[in-house]
């Protein structure tokens, strides 16, 4: 998850007061933010675009600008430091990604403001025409919403803030631009109406961001421009590429790859045009309302854009608050907290929600960006946060219940005690194994009875164990430089395919034990196996086995007519070689119980 550094000075500026770092951190934590730590950032000026680049105090000064991409031989010059709070972003709450959204929440928590954030929405008079081809099934990026914002003239800091938020929304909502991607432009460079359509990847040309005067075709951009190379995979299924054009055919952007250089935001820009395009209607709407709501907190004024969709016009963004009716009694029961109706309303307003009585219930209005609210329990959570987790008096459930352990666990404990009594030390190993370690090294073959993983990151996790030998042999290998004899055991589950079972597998609890040393052998193993069978009051008969992992003539299978299964033998010298071991090993494995 990305970590974002929020400047304490910037937060205080937005809060209109000078709070101590501790108060800010505590407030953010009590709001549910994941505060990683606080830190001092060093700020460096990019010699090309003047934008501040920041680094942690102990990090190397930058040589490449993270905004304009400028690279220099010399490290950038440091001009200031900044005290910041570093947050691990919460994917579920994109409204808490930036100083604007965080200050809105903090204003409620610190009781500076309450209820819904108030703002007016104007009409920009800008229209966008959406080419019907965009909604052809399975092609292009069908969904688009837009907005206009009047803002205080952009400076380096506000420009940087907007770019960061855009990036984080791409991560949090847009699935790295796949479901939704945002474009932000200087409206004063654009003449409406705007068209959302497609262009040919080979014949069309424009100047991509950061390359003024360099005309490139869309395909050239995908091959050569860093953003094109980075997001090329999103265009693979397209024959023609999405494009946003103004009335004079000036390119705004080629979503979701890159903006044009002519329409980019710069220092001094005071009218923003914003578009969000994507594959998911919810994601594009969420991205837009979250972004413009954050910009409102930074002093922006929202204006709608008339979207002429193939199925009719609509004004976006729609920032109408959502409403949900909730029950005070249900909330009280769900949370178990001592609040009355007045407190109840106060806490909700503290969380920047509006609440009004509505018969037996309460009508709660929540901002458009709070798409996480799907059920009244989501509002209950806000209520609990408004109450303050630190103020909750913990209680315990008074109902009596009877504890009960699983039978295989009771049995395993008994066997574990017996094995330790016999001088064996317990080991634990992993269930996921490579084919080589689990089968080939034992002269076994992967056959139709084994569980196979479809998508492991490495071949080390290709199969799920169906015997316990691998962990034992690997452990001996790891301890091969230590004194012998060594005696070890493991108790754990193995998994076999079982067509009758609900999930297609059966799980068994097994015991494996082994001794490595110059003088060990079948007879010593037999003593141990017999001792364990005796403790379990199990009887079995030994019969010569023909198992490829064991020396011929020195292994046995132990069975009876009640389903007993065990294996005992001397490990084949070839297998010893395969695991880099130089002493004989006697190995026993016993099925203790079927678990699933």
């Amino acid at each position, binding site marked *: 998850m990305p970590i974002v550094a929020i400047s304490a000075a910037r937060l205080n500026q937005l809060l209109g007061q000078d709070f101590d770092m501790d108060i800010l951190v505590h407030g953010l*934590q009590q709001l*549910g933010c*994941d505060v990683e730590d606080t830190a001092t950032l060093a700020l460096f000026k990019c010699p090309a675009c003047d934008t501040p680049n920041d680094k942690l105090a102990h990090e190397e000064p930058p040589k490449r600008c993270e905004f304009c991409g400028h690279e220099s031989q010399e490290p950038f010059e440091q001009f200031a430091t900044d005290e910041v709070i570093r947050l691990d972003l919460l994917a*579920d709450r994109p409204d808490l990604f930036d100083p604007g959204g965080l200050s809105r929440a903090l204003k409620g928590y610190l009781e500076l403001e309450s209820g819904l954030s108030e703002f007016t929405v104007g009409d920009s008079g800008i229209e966008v025409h959406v080419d019907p081809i965009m909604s052809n099934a399975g092609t292009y990026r069908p969904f688009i919403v837009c907005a206009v914002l009047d803002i205080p003239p952009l400076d380096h800091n506000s420009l940087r803030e907007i770019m960061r938020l855009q990036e984080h929304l791409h991560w949090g909502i847009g*699935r790295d631009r796949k479901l939704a991607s945002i474009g932000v432009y200087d409206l004063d460079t654009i003449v409406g109406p705007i068209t959302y359509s497609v262009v040919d990847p080979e014949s069309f040309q424009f100047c991509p961001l950061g390359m003024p005067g360099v005309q490139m075709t869309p395909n050239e951009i995908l091959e050569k421009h860093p953003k094109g190379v980075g997001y090329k995979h999103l265009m693979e299924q397209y024959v023609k590429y999405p494009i946003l054009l103004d009335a004079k055919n000036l390119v705004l952007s080629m979503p979701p790859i890159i903006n044009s250089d002519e329409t980019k935001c710069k220092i001094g820009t005071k009218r923003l045009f914003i578009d969000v395009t994507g594959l998911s209607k919810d994601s594009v709407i969420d991205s837009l309302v979250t972004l413009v709501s954050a910009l409102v907190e930074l002093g922006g004024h929202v204006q709608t854009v008339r979207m002429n969709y193939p199925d009719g016009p609509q004004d976006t963004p729609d920032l109408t608050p959502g409403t949900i009716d909730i029950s005070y009694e249900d909330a009280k029961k*769900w*949370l*178990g*907290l001592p609040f009355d109706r007045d407190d109840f309303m106060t806490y909700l307003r503290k969380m920047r929600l509006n609440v009004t009585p509505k018969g037996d219930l309460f009508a709660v209005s929540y901002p458009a960006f709070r798409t*996480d609210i*799907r059920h*009244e*329990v*989501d509002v*209950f*959570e806000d209520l*609990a*946060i408004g109450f303050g*987790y*630190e103020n*909750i008096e*913990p209680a*315990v*459930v*008074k*109902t*009596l*219940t*009877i*504890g*009960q*352990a699983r039978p295989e*666990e009771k049995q395993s404990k008994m066997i574990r005690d017996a094995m*330790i009594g016999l*001088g*064996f*030390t317990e*080991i634990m*190993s*992993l269930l*996921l194994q490579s084919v080589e370690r689990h089968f080939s090294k034992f002269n076994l073959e992967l056959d139709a009875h084994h569980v*196979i*993983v*479809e*998508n492991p*990151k490495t071949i080390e*996790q290709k199969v*799920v164990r169906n015997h316990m030998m691998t962990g034992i042999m*690997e452990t001996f290998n790891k301890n091969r430089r230590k004194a012998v004899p060594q005696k*070890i055991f493991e108790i754990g*589950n193995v*998994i076999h*395919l079982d067509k009758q079972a*609900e*999930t*297609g*597998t059966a*799980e068994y609890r097994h015991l494996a034990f082994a001794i490595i040393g110059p003088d060990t052998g079948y007879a010593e193993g037999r003593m141990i196996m017999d001792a364990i069978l005796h403790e379990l009051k199990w009887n079995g008969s030994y019969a010569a086995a023909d198992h490829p992992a064991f020396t011929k003539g020195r292994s046995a299978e132990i069975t009876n007519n009640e389903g007993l299964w065990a294996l005992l033998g001397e490990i084949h010298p070839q297998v010893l070689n395969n695991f880099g071991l130089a002493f004989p090993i006697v190995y026993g494995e016993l099925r203790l119980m079927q*678990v*699933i």
Partner: protein
Amino acid sequence: MTLNEDQWKILKAVLDAETPLNLNQLVDLTGLDMPLVSATIQWGQESGWLDVAENQREELVPAEEAKELLGSGLPERRALSLLAETGRMPMKDVAAKAQELDIPMHEIIKWGSARGWFEKDKGELVLTETGKTAMQTLDADENAMNIAIARGGVYLDDLADLDIDVERVKKLLGTRALVAKIKPRTIRIVHLNETGTSILRSKDIRIVKERNTLTSEDISSGEWRNIRLRHYDVTLAAESVAPAKIHLMQKIIQETRTAFLEMGFEEIVSPIVESAFWDFDALFQPQDHPARDMQDTFYLTRPAEARLPDAEIVERVKRTHEDGGDTGSTGWGYTWSEARARQTVLRTHTTASTIRAVQANPRPPRKVFCVGKVFRNESLSYKHLPEFHQVDGIIIDENGSLATLLGTLKEFYRKMGFEKVRFKPDFFPYTEPSAEISVYMESKNAWIEFGGSGLFRPEVTRPLGCHVPVLAWGLGLERLAMLRYGLKDIRELYWSDIDKIKEVPLCQ
């Protein structure tokens, strides 16, 4: 008076001696070793029977190589024969000859000059009159060395008795460690006094056997009464040994189980190979949720599909995802796929077990827990294992609430050894509200995030037929083990270093 056989042997030797003996002589006479003789004499001294006179002497102790050196002749003596014919020789010729014969040149010059055998004159080495004489006779130190080598050491005052010039010996050997060392020695001479003499001569002396151990026969025959067991120095350190032992991780698992069982929880299991339905869908995780990606979850080629529960349950879960069904929720607003729910995965959390338990028996009151292996599609690193242990607990209770959840957690964590616990809001996909737990670790002087909790969303419980609050929490046990044992690398837990398992104390 009771003495053991050895004590008697030593004291008897003292008693019978015509002239007072020293300790070395006692060792020779009794055939016992020096520590025993020395301890016995000290004991006799402390008992007031003996007086010990200390006599300072100097001993000439031959070096290890001394016999060989003297046998072939000391370097300067070997050089005598080089000059025997001519009486003088240029230094460089001497050096060449010396090198040829492997005689150290500097030794020749140093010790030859010291003895007055050679002189340097105009770049030549000259044999002196003393040197000429020396060719026929051995020097004092050489004589002394021959005696010392023969006897394994000799006292200088004994040499004086043999008319050897002790001062010359000291001058020539005092700093010649290659040949010998002169060491100061304290000689203890034992004098039996009157008290000792009368006691040892009396009839009251009883001699007992002293042993380190009793034989089986000594014990059963009663012979042990005549045997005195030697006293040990009980403060001495012993060799280290560690018992065969339960695995570090297993111990944490068993402690966790015990905590839950003591709190009245029933233990449950569920399959490791799980359906996506129970791992994700039943927990209201939308089918396009990133956690379900191939990136994070192990899907299986074999078995490829699992069976779904009753059609009615499946239908309710489907509707909850699509439009909320009758749970009071808006749902996710997408078309739910049964095929995706049938996919098999290696379970990603033990919440798959507890949610199955909710469906199996949703009637309160119930408390259940599950400890088991869970899987994440990650490569092995110091921070991540592709498989690890998790514990999940739930309480199904009419009066369950956020407050009782936090209260139960406090008790649970106290049982796990954490006295100080605090909570903060968090966001998890299937609980609402949710709380993250932090515990205070004395050893780190810090709060450590350690576990998540919450009330299952109604979208999770109602489709499964449960209409009362379900309190849920879970935590990863490897993380607890790492904190407990101070490990920096999670893989250390599974390297199964036998020595490490044995060394870590059971009591933590």
